[in-house]
């Protein structure tokens, strides 16, 4: 199944609210609540936006998610949680994730997701060909 946004949240209430708000914004998503489902959820289809909620996560789970973020190349990552946990994500990768520290604000997260999806409509592989057509170079 194809979806635009992947959401991981151990917290049923936060995850549920976010799911509802994203759906209200007509964004297709996959929500998982168990850390073991994260890898499977991302392996079949790399979505444009990955939202990882650190709230209620154990230390090992945070470490796992840090490694995961470092390996993601084509997805934009949005991290949620308390400021202290999010500081662990000061990765050396070229592209840094977006941080939305608590208090939890699903509307802002949905707005950012919508913006990312709207601004990245091109497929990287066809981008150069698209440009040639627009510029009448072909």
């Amino acid at each position: 199944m194809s979806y635009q946004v992947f959401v991981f949240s151990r917290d049923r209430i936060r995850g549920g609210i976010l799911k509802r708000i994203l759906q209200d914004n007509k964004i297709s998503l996959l929500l998982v609540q168990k850390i073991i489902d994260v890898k499977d959820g991302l392996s079949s289809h790399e979505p444009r936006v990955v939202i990882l909620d650190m709230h209620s996560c154990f230390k090992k789970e945070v470490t796992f998610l840090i490694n995961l973020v470092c390996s993601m190349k084509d997805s934009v990552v949005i991290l949620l949680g308390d400021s202290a946990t999010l500081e662990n994500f000061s990765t050396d990768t070229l592209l840094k994730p977006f941080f939305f520290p608590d208090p939890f604000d699903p509307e802002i997260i949905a707005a950012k997701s919508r913006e990312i999806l709207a601004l990245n409509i091109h497929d990287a592989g066809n981008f150069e060909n698209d440009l040639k057509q627009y510029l009448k170079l072909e």
Partner: protein
Amino acid sequence: MAVVGPKGGVGKTTISANLAISISRLGKKVVVVDLDLGASNLNSYLGIRNSKYTLDDFILNKVNSLQDIVLETGFENMGFICGGNIPGIANLHYSKKMKLIRNLSLLECDYVLLDLGAGASFNVVDFAIIAKESLLVTTPEVPSIINTYVFLKTLVFRRLEFAFKQFKNQQLLDLLAQAKDIEKNPHLKKMENIIKAVELIDGKASELILKLLARLKPALVLNRIRSDRDLKSGTAIQNLTKEYIGIECSKVLSVQEDASVGYAMARMKPAMLENPGSIFAKDITKIAKFLIQQQVYF
């Protein structure tokens, strides 16, 4: 050094303001000039209110030289020339433009940073031509990349037009005019074919073109980057300019999307000062270091 943003709203002025601060912090004396003629607002990005002098004073001959209107910014090593807003300044007369260009080269500093207007008008292109380094600011979306390509093509054709006029050969100018209409003359779509056609008319002119093109090496700044995929738009523009315009973008630099920039703007303060540890500030510092290592001096 010209900061050019072929499309409005790509973050050109934000980058100019913060880049100037970053260069000055690296110990180089810099003057940042608001040359967004008719739409200047760089002072607000620097938090400078009630500018004592503006470019208007120079254009209206109220001062003798551009140096007289360099304002203090409160940052060590950094001066600022506030843009003008008198009616008609956007369509600066050629003689005024040449006077301005002469005075820019006389400013007492290591770097002159020109914050130019959007678009590919001759006023913008001519200031980019006189700069030793051009930073082309764009975002990774298709409309911005298209405008960047069109700007570069305009810049190259303008430069070639100046060169061909020196040869006083009408055939060369006619050829250039034909190359502008690629639908009618598809064989002149690529620069290598234009050069071949020029060679048939005048061998020395084709040699000159090659020298000019080799010198034009703008750096591309991809602003508001969100993923690796976005960076590929930089590669695309590099490939297209090399294949069709015959120039190479010397470097693709990137500035990541950072919410702290918007917050700083809302407070009318440069993001470099408001949040020096931000991703944006780090990326700007990288660009400043790159430019200084290139040793681009006036």
